[in-house]
């Protein structure tokens, strides 16, 4: 399996837990990935609202490097990164004039149809359910887990070509593999407010609050995500939201890789679970308790 790995900025910074846990479970599963050398920012959030060519050129450069190195598919764990990479690939495929412009400016050819995988696609498609299931050493049965998808993984559906955009289930399926119980709720794909986090925190708190309270209402013990931006809104803003709406949430927000890691029996510390704002101690205890019951 020749798979290029595009970490993107978040995984090297604010969401280091995502990368740490990803590498950990890959190591456990004996799967090798290779970081794209000299990768650059995908341009997420900002580029496409300012300069269209730039928004294609930035991801295209990463794809071109991967292509040059002989890769046919790329793993981009960050939902925003995978979204931008997919968008660029889509535009290059469907617009020959743009492709010429971009490859000229990059001074690199890009011809192939690189297959770009977000984290969920990678786990379900490339790794496969059977493999994951076989890795589960510590089933999380009894744990109720809400999967939060956000917008970037599934939208726009024509470009993402991933799951049902209105009712995605891939992450729930992964949750079920760990033995935990997926919790159905109403705001799986509702926007968390994304980058308004810094400019309009009120908007973010309202939107993220909607999501979190709905999850709480449906009785989940924790939330899993596959997007650094979602994670930071749900995790970092949680305290503030609790204060603003005067109602306790206490919902740890984990990356899907962390949840898998836990079920694989990996030490939570190795998965960097202690790196989150909302402490997962209670959940971890519950997991231990469940394991001891058995």
């Amino acid at each position, binding site marked *: 399996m020749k798979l290029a790995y595009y970490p993107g900025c978040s995984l090297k910074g604010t969401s280091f837990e995502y990368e740490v846990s990803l590498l950990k479970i890959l190591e456990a599963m004996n799967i090798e990935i290779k970081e794209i050398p000299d990768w650059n920012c995908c341009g997420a959030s900002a580029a496409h609202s300012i300069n269209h060519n730039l928004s294609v050129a930035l991801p295209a450069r990463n794809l071109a490097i991967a292509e040059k190195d002989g890769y046919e598919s790329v793993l981009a764990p960050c939902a925003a990164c995978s979204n931008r990479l997919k968008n660029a690939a889509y535009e290059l495929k469907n617009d020959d004039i743009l492709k010429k412009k971009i490859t000229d400016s990059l001074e690199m050819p890009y011809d192939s149809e690189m297959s770009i995988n977000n984290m969920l696609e990678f786990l379900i498609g490339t790794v496969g359910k059977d493999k994951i299931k076989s890795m589960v050493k510590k089933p999380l049965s009894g744990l109720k887990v809400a999967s939060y998808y956000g917008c970037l993984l599934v939208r726009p559906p024509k470009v993402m070509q991933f799951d*049902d*955009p*209105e*009712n995605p289930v891939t992450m729930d399926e992964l949750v079920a593999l760990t033995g935990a119980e997926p919790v*159905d709720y*109403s*705001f799986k794909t509702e926007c968390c407010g994304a980058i308004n986090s810094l400019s309009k925190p009120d908007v973010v708190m309202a939107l993220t609050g909607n999501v979190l309270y*709905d999850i709480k209402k449906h009785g989940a013990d924790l939330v899993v995500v596959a997007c650094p931006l979602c994670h930071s809104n749900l995790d970092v803003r949680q305290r503030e939201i609790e204060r603003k709406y005067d109602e306790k949430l206490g919902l740890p927000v984990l990356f899907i890789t962390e949840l898998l890691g836990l079920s694989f029996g990996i030490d939570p510390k190795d998965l960097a679970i202690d790196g989150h704002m909302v402490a997962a101690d209670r959940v971890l205890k519950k997991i231990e308790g469940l394991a001891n019951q058995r």
Partner: protein
Amino acid sequence: MSRIGVFVCWCGSNIAGTVDVEKVREEAAKIPGVVSALDYKYMCSDPGQNSLRNIIKEKNLTGIVLAACSPHMHENTFRKAAAKEGLNPYFVEIANIREQVSWVHEDKERATAKAVDLMKMMVEKVKRDRPIEDVRVPLNKKALVIGGGIAGIQAALDIANGGVEVILVEKEPSIGGRMIQLDETFPTLDCSSCIMTPKMVEANQHPNIKLYTYSEVEDISGYIGNFKVKIKKKARSVVEKDCTGCGECWNACPMHKNVKSEFNVNLSERTAIYVPFPQAVPLVPVLDRSVCLHFKKGGKCQKCYDACGPKCINFDLQDEIIEETVGAIVASTGYDLMDTSMYGEYGYGKYKDVISGLQFERLLSASGPTEGVIKRPSDGKTPQTIVFVQCVGSRDPEKGVPYCSKVCCMYTAKHAKLFAHKVHGSQSYVFYIDIRSTSKGYEEFVRGTMEQDGAIYLRGRVSKIYEDEGKLIVKGADTLSGNQVEIAADMVVLATGVIPKKGSDKLAQMLGISYDKYGFFTESHPKLRPAESSTAGIFLAGMAQGPRDIPESVVSGSAAASKILGLFSKNEYEVEGTIANVNEATCVACFYCQRVCAYNAISKKEIKDRSGKLIKVVANVNPGLCTGCGACVNACFSKSIDVKGFMDDQIYAEIKALAV
């Protein structure tokens, strides 16, 4: 040797003003084989036709050329005139020197030269004309109607009342189709079963109608006048002629849970032996073997048999194949509703109280699962607030279909109205894109729903429906006020788009009729031949053609019927003789002709010697289906197929006549 007569028409000054008609005549007389050349002021007039007929007789002509107006004008006139003198009407060719010469050119010398050319072409063509006899196809005066909804029933009744035998085939255990599932019908609010049931009974009792319910058309071959039909009568496990419809059997059936009623769109349960609804026609139950304990658990349970008075239940009945020969067919297979599960944001299937329009019809119906009391499927409570969402799937090229389903605006208005009538103090909201209410009384009806019955119409789409504390929260846009709205509803009714009945594409392939990309059968001509399919002898009716309401379905049923009665008013069906013809000696059976034929007119024919040994396979043209378009000729490498009236050697002769 050819004896050709050439007649040059002046058309008053229409031709003679620009073309030197005498010169054309003179040139015609010089052509070998032309024995008579004449010019006359108006060839189409009685004296003109008479002189034409006289010369045919006098000179014993073998072919005539008229240098005159377009063949689309008077070809038939002159063919008839020639036929009266015993000349094969296809030995008449027209050189169009009016529309193609005198009316479009000004230089007389050049126009005349062109007229001479066109005349010469036709002389060369007519020399190579072979006699063509129109093909007469005998007609089996019996019709098959596929689909027993309102359109099919109407067609069957009209045909039967015209004195012609009809076979009506229905897939379901009862006829009635979609209409019998409806409650009251817009815009007059007469109850569907009240107006439908008598028609169903009439169809069942009509001496000219043979009814096959719980049956499907398995195979169709042949052509207009002579279709061979195989009908599979599925094993009903009940002997129809003995059954009294008393109901003892289904009352005795232990399987009264778990099996969802198709008729009530999953809102209630039925037994394994069942009639789909109390007014079913015929009132004979069907035993659903896929759920019956007798079949699933080794024949022990026979409670229905024990309960049956006339002992007409027979577990050993088998599927039966019935073969019929009919002369014409009506395809009226109706429609299905789109699967709305692709609208994940609306939660259909996830939230019990998000239902389809057809389900709401059943809730409204006095014979429905709630006996006409509107109750929520989740908890049986009567809803106080209902949100109706129109265009779910329709007019949505991204996720659904781009076309308008035509009936949803009206039935939604009806639903909101009936809801207001049945639940006092209730409130309904309708999300719509446009309101399409274009038939008689429709606009007034919708207005009434808004103004008298207080339904609030919101122009915009719904983005999401989710459950919150027992309420369905409907988020949508009101584009007229420019606001986002959220409505907490007790129930949501989705006006789902209509699509062709599942399997109608397969039926179309079996029938050899064309269908559009959605699967709706296409008309022979969308405006001028709306009742005919692309294949002779097969007619269309009802929603199988495209979205339409009840009156339109009835009209289309009657239209198909009148076409069939018209067809059957003669003993033979006449087809123009200009059809394809195979040279069996040189055909190598590559069947490219068959591939390009749009009419299924080409089949394989085995040529055998006297002992029955296969010598070769060749293409064979079915004269009842061939339209003479000539696509097959073009496809044939060895030129072993040709179309009469436009033979290759004729075209070559025309080209040669133009040689410079």
